[in-house]
């Protein structure tokens, strides 16, 4: 920010922050309270009895929450890794080169963000049956790429449009092999984009419900599926406890990367700014 902002601008900024905090944080409070409540009925403002029963159950082997947690982490990490592997070269092509049909490719990549996921998933379902990928973890990981790839690719396209490939030519000329050029020159320049895009991809995969349900056929029980089961069965206390576990990665990632996300460094990245 250059110069002094006016009082109105400042006030408006604080108000916006406040509204956002209320909007995002307030709904979580009843969830947290539920997880420690034994019954919580209208018109009580707070539950009459407090207990750790819901947490005991959530952490027990019988609930399957911990198994589900590890499974979900595994699936999201795998989907993120694949997104990076595909999204980095794709983003490079889109950000750096002009080629025939580029607009069509861009539309295709963006399509999953526009077309309802369930429509896409129904189409993919029949293909996956044919490939024997339904009801498998691999199938779920693959189908998660539909919503994660656009984020990864678009972030990387932004990074690469600010990137000067002459740095790579310079490294080659100085004696670096293609692999070393990538490691010492390209990677440091695009790492902020990989981190931001990867976090997006992880969180998008983490929150998939429909796609997991459809392709996993209820056999691949990720945390959102488990959460939904308890929510529909009316166990608000256990739902609250699992809900708390479920939002943990989001909060952790936010805390770890707040500086990166808020600062301009990560979002822009690349050599172009130097």
């Amino acid at each position, binding site marked *: 920010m250059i110069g002094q902002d006016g009082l109105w601008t400042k006030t408006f900024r604080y108000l916006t922050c406040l509204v956002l905090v209320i909007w995002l944080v307030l709904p979580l409070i009843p969830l947290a309270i539920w997880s420690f409540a034994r019954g919580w009925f209208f018109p009580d403002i707070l539950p009459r009895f407090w207990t750790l029963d819901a947490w005991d159950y959530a952490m027990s082997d019988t609930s399957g929450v911990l198994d589900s947690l590890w499974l979900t982490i595994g699936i999201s990490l795998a989907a993120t890794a694949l997104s990076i592997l595909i999204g980095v070269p794709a983003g490079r092509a889109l950000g750096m080169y002009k080629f025939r049909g580029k607009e069509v490719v861009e539309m295709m990549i963006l399509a999953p963000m526009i077309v309802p996921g369930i429509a896409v998933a129904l189409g993919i379902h029949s293909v996956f049956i044919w490939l024997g990928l339904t009801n498998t973890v691999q199938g779920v990981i693959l189908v998660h790429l539909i919503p994660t790839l656009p984020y990864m690719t678009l972030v990387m396209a932004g990074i690469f449009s600010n990137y*000067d490939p*002459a*740095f790579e*030519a*310079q*490294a*080659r*000329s*100085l*004696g*670096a*092999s293609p692999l*070393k050029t990538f490691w*010492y*020159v390209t990677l*440091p*320049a695009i790492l902020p984009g990989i981190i931001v895009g990867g976090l997006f991809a992880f969180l998008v995969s983490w929150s998939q419900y429909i796609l997991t349900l459809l392709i996993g056929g209820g056999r691949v029980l990720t945390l959102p599926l488990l959460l939904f089961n308890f929510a529909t069965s009316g166990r608000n206390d256990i739902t609250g406890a699992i809900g708390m576990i479920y939002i943990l990665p989001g909060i952790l990632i936010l805390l770890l990367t707040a500086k990166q996300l808020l600062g301009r460094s990560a979002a822009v990245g690349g*050599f172009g700014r*130097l």
Partner: protein
Amino acid sequence: MTHVSIQHLTKLYPGGDHPALDRLSLEIESGTLTALLGPSGCGKTTTMKIIAGLLEPSSGDVRFDGRSILREKPENRGAVMVFQNHLLFPYMSVAENVGFGLKMRKTNPAEIKRRVGEMLDLVRLPDLGERRPSALSGGQQQRVALARALIVQPEVLLLDEPLSNLDTHLRFGMRDLIRSLQQETGITTIFVTHDQEDAVVLADRVALILDGQMKQYETADAFYKRPVDEATARFFGGRNFVSGTSADGVFDSALGRLVLPLGAIAGQGTLTFRPENVRLGHAPSGENNLTADLIEVIYLGTQTRLKLSVGDMLIEAIVNPTDAEGYRVGALVPLHLPSGALWVIS
């Protein structure tokens, strides 16, 4: 010490209607400093990138000491290119930048440290090793880029517009540095420039490239004295071109009969003479004297440019400002064209 031979190099870009390089040939003697001179888009940087292995030619060959290098990867060519905008790696310190080439060659760290120190001394930046490139001035960055290339002791050093990003006073210092480094190391050096002055001051030989074609490849003074064609002469500031006929050592044209130097070609041609070789005042011999109308006087500080007409012919002269005093626009000016300053282009 490496002899570079460029043979019939042609480069067609897809979609381009004429070749960026058109059968360009050039023999560069071992240990010399050669300028590839030309306006932007003439193909000089393309030539350099092909030598460096960063572009593939459509046809033709590049040989180092007689051995074709087109199949070698850029990292194995022994030709190191220094880009116009320095391209220092921003995530590395100055010392890491300079040592990059040695690190890629798996030189041991102690040795790298020692040679980086030597190189930084050589480019006169001894204490800046720990800095980030972004903390350096443009001139310092350029010197670091030079050190980073020289440290690997390349067979051929390629400099892309090494002087164009620098202010005038830095530019003179950089010219001296490049010249002295080149003479100390004896590395065959090719540099690209669009500035004829840089080419003339710095290079042993100058290759003028216009529209992808080699126009003339000689020592610098030849471009002033013996340009091969009008475009070449114009690129070097030639202004005076008169068509006519050369016969028996005399050129017949709108300027009258002018006596040519010995050995001038005969037949239809274009006469050219440098504006700075036009003399004010008639010569006593009576040969090659003209009288012209003064159309415009442009004072340039250390010189004065006169625009004159002889009949319909426009000519330009560059003279000493004190000599030009006293001539006003519209005056008749006596001129002399020494026959040694005349050159006929066929």
